[in-house]
C-alpha cells in the first residue's frame, strides 16, 4: 500500500450552513454561508486559496454543472476549481480532492466545499435521474429508500431475525438521532420523537417507515486544508489532521453475481479496511471516539455498524438496543443528529460530518461536546448498497 496521507494534511477552517428548508436562500448564498465561516475560522483571505473542489450532485437544482457557477458564487478568481460528483460521497470526494492536492505538494491551501438545494425540486425525496441510456432500458427506477430497504430483507434472512425485532432496532437508530439532533443548532429537525411514533409511522419502502428515512434538506459545508507546517505558520496550535480518506466503488459484483447475500455493504467494508490501515487503527471499537455515518435510512446505519467492524456480524441489533452507539455509549454515533436530523443535501453531507468531528476534536461542540475525543470517523454511502460508492475518512488530533 502506498504511504497514504496520514497527518500530511491539516484542516484549518470549517464552515457549515444551517441545514433545513432554506426557502430564504439559493445555492449561491448557501455556499457563501459555509464558505464565510470556513474562511473566518481559518483566518485567511480568499486570495490565499490555491485551488478548490466543489461538490454537488443534482445540477438542475443547484447552480448548474461544471465548477464555473460555484467559482462565480464564491468569486474564486483565476484558480483551478473542479466539480466533484460521486453520489452521496460527493462532499467527502471534494475533501479528498483538496487533501490529495495539498498532500502532493501541488498546492499550499485548498478549499473543499459541497452543497445541495433539494428543496428546489418541488417535492420531498431525491430527484429521479437517468441511469444512462442502457441501464434505463432495464433497471427498475426505484426510490432511494427502496434501494436501501432491501438490506432489511437480506439482513433478517442471513441472521434469522424476526421482522419485528429488526424493526425495533432500526427504530432505536432513528430515536437516538432525534434525541441527539435536539442539541444541534444547525440541524433541520430538532425534535425528539417517541419510539412508538417511529415504529408506527406510514410506510415509505417496506420495512422503512417515514422516520426510518432521513430528511430532505438544503445545506452546504466547507473545509480549508493545508499542510501541518503551513498551519502552524498560520498560528494554529491544536491541529486536526486527516488520518485517512478511502473510497470503494462497486464493479457490479454484488448486483450481478451470487457473492453477496444482501445483508451488508461490501464497499463500506473495503473502504473501512483501507482507511483503518492508512490511519493506523487496529481496534476501531476502542480507538474511535465518535462516528458520523451515512444514516440515510435507519437500516443503513444498522448494517454500517458491522461494516465498520464495530459490531460483530449479526450483533448490531443487540449493540444498538444496548445503547452502545447512543450519545452516552462507548462509540457515540451521530451525536449531531446525523443525516436523520440534518437532512441530506447530497454534496454537503460528507463535509457536514467532518465539521462535527472537527468541532468535537477541538472541543467546540457546545452542548453536544463529548469528553476525551481524539479520533473520529465519517462514512458516506452513495448509490445503493449493491451498486454504489462508500467513503470512509478518519480525522484526529495530531
Amino acid at each position: 500500500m502506498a504511504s497514504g496521507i496520514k497527518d500530511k494534511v491539516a484542516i484549518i477552517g470549517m464552515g457549515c450552513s444551517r441545514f433545513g428548508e432554506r426557502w430564504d436562500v439559493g445555492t449561491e448564498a448557501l455556499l457563501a454561508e459555509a464558505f464565510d465561516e470556513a474562511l473566518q475560522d481559518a483566518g485567511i483571505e480568499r486570495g490565499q486559496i490555491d485551488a478548490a473542489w466543489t461538490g454537488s450532485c443534482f445540477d438542475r437544482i443547484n447552480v448548474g454543472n461544471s465548477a464555473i457557477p460555484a467559482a462565480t458564487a464564491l468569486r474564486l478568481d483565476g484558480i483551478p476549481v473542479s466539480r466533484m460528483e460521486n453520489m452521496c460521497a460527493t462532499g467527502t470526494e471534494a475533501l479528498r480532492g483538496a487533501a490529495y492536492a495539498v498532500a502532493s505538494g501541488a498546492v499550499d491551501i485548498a478549499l473543499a466545499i459541497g452543497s445541495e438545494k433539494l428543496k428546489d425540486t418541488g417535492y420531498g425525496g431525491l430527484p429521479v435521474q437517468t441511469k444512462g441510456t442502457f441501464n434505463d432500458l432495464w433497471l427498475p427506477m426505484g426510490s432511494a429508500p427502496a434501494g436501501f430497504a432491501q438490506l432489511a430483507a437480506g439482513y433478517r434472512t442471513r441472521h434469522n431475525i424476526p421482522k419485528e425485532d429488526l424493526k425495533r432496532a432500526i427504530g432505536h437508530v432513528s430515536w437516538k438521532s432525534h434525541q441527539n439532533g435536539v442539541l444541534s443548532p444547525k440541524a433541520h429537525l430538532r425534535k425528539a420523537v417517541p419510539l412508538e411514533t417511529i415504529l408506527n409511522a406510514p410506510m415509505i419502502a417496506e420495512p422503512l417507515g417515514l422516520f426510518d428515512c432521513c430528511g430532505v434538506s438544503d445545506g452546504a459545508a466547507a473545509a480549508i486544508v493545508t499542510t501541518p507546517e503551513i498551519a502552524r505558520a498560520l498560528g494554529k496550535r491544536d491541529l486536526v489532521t486527516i488520518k485517512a480518506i478511502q473510497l470503494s466503488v462497486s464493479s457490479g459484483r454484488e448486483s450481478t453475481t451470487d457473492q453477496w447475500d444482501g445483508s451488508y455493504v461490501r464497499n463500506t467494508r473495503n473502504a473501512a479496511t483501507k482507511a483503518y490501515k492508512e490511519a493506523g487503527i487496529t481496534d476501531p471499537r476502542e480507538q474511535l471516539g465518535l462516528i458520523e455515518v451515512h444514516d440515510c435510512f435507519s437500516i443503513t446505519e444498522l448494517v454500517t455498524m458491522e461494516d465498520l467492524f464495530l459490531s460483530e456480524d449479526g450483533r448490531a441489533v443487540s449493540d444498538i438496543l444496548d445503547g452502545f452507539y447512543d450519545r452516552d455509549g462507548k462509540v457515540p454515533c451521530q451525536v449531531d443528529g446525523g443525516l436523520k436530523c440534518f437532512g441530506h443535501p447530497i454534496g454537503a453531507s460528507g463535509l457536514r460530518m467532518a465539521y462535527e468531528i472537527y468541532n468535537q476534536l477541538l472541543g467546540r461542540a457546545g452542548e453536544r461536546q463529548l469528553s476525551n475525543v481524539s479520533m473520529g470517523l465519517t462514512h458516506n454511502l452513495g448509490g445503493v448498497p449493491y451498486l454504489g460508492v462508500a467513503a470512509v475518512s478518519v480525522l484526529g488530533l495530531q
Partner: protein
Amino acid sequence: MTFGIVAWGGYVPRNRLDRSVIAATHAWMAPSLKGQAKGRRAFCNWDEDVVTMSVEAARNCLGPRDRSVVGNIQLASTTAPTADLQSSAIVAVALRLGRKVNSMDVGGSHRAGMAVLSNALRAGGKPTLVLASERLRAKPASVQEMQYGAGAAAFLLGSENVAAALIGSASVTTLLVDHFRASGFAHDYFWEERWIREEGYLKIGAEAIREALADAGVAPDDVTSFVFPAPSRGIADAVAKAAGIAPTAVAGALELDVGFTGAAHSLLMLSDILDKAQPGQLIVVAGFGQGADVVVLRTTDAVASGRPARPLADLVAAGHTTQSYAQMAAFYDEIHPDQGMRAERDTKTALTEQYRSSDQVNGFVAGQCSSCGQVQFPQLAYCVECQAPSTALEPLCLAEEKAHVLTFTADGLTFHPSPPMYMGFAQFDVGARLLMEFVDVNPDAFDVGTALEMRFRIKERDETRGYYRYFWKAAPVA
C-alpha cells in the same frame, strides 16, 4: 403432407373486476347495466398490452420447442400499441425467433385473428406462429365496458406432429358495419344490437359456416365443437341453430371470467377447446367482422402433444379479483389520476441503444463466461468475475430460467402507475442475479426465497412521445 395446428397456448391477464362493481359505479346514470352484472372481466395491468400478452401466449404455446424453426410470425390485433411499428417484430425478438423470421401485423377488424389463422392454415409452408392479442378499450358506462376483456392466444402451425388438421374453410366479405373505430379514436361506436344479430351473425355467419362445412365435406351434425365469438351472450347458440349445428357443440365464450377479446376471441376459445380435445373431434371455428372466416378442423391422434404448459382453464382460474373500478379505468386511460411531480420524469428512449442491446433487453440474453462460468446480466465489456473480455461470453437466455427472491421491498415513494412497486434481486439458479421489478405479487405470500418466473412486460411508458419500451419482470411462480 398435412399442415395444421401443432401447438397452442393462451394468456389472460391476472386482473379481474367484478361486473357488479362496474355496474354499481355507474348505477347513478346507467342503471340498466345491472342486467349484465354477472361474472367478472379480465383487464390488463398498466404494463400489459397486445405485445406483452402475445409474448406470454407464445411462450405458453411453444414451451421448450426449438424456436429457430419458426419461419413466420403473424400477429392480429385491433389494439396494437403502435400504428406504425411492428408489434410482431418486438414479439419475435422477445421470443428469440432469429433474424430470418418473416413477421407481419394484421388488424382492421375483430375478424383479424381468425383471418390470420385461416390464411396461415391454407398457405402451409414453413412453421408459422399465429398470434391474436387484444386489449379492448371501452367508454365508461358503456355496454362494452361490461362485455370486453383482454387476452391473447398463440398457435404454432406446421407439418410435424399436427394435432388438428385443416379439412375445410370458407370466407365471406360484406360491408355490414356493426361497429367501427376511426383511426385516432379511443372507443368503438356500435349500431343496434338486434340488427347486428339478425342481419349479421345469423345470416352472414351461418352462410360462411355452411360453406366451410361443405368445403370440408362434413355434415353440421358431425360438429363436435363450435366456436363463434361475439360480445353478447346467446349469439353462438342462435348461429349454431341457423347452421344446423347441435346446441351441445356450442363452446363457452369465456364470458364469466374473461370477457370478449375482439380479434383474439376465436383463437382464445379454440385454445380452450383444444386443451380438452380428444382425437377425431370435428371443430368449427368462426371469426366475424365485415363478413366471416370459418375453418373446419379435425383433431388427430397427436392432439395431446400440442397442449400448453398452462391450459386456459388454469389461467382463467388464476385471476385476481380487484374491487377497484378506478384502477381499471386508470390503466385504460379513462381517468387520469394526479401522479405527482415524480411522474414528470422524461422517459425518452435512446433508440440507438435499444437496437444495440435488443438481444439483452428484449431477448433477456445474459452472457456466460467461457473462462470462469459466471452468468451475468447485463453483458458489459468484461466479465464481472474474471474480467475476461466480452468475446468470452456465451449467450444464455434467462427468460425460462428458475429464480428466487434474494431481497425485496415495496416501494411507495417512487412513481409507479400501480404503487407500491415491488422490486429487489432475483437470484437465478444458473448463477445470474439482477435487480428486477416484481409483478403479480400477493403481499401475504411473498418473501425472500419465493420462487420466481419471468414475464415480458412494459418497462416504461413514454407518454410524451407515445412510445413504450419493454423488459422482463419477475412474478411469483403461479
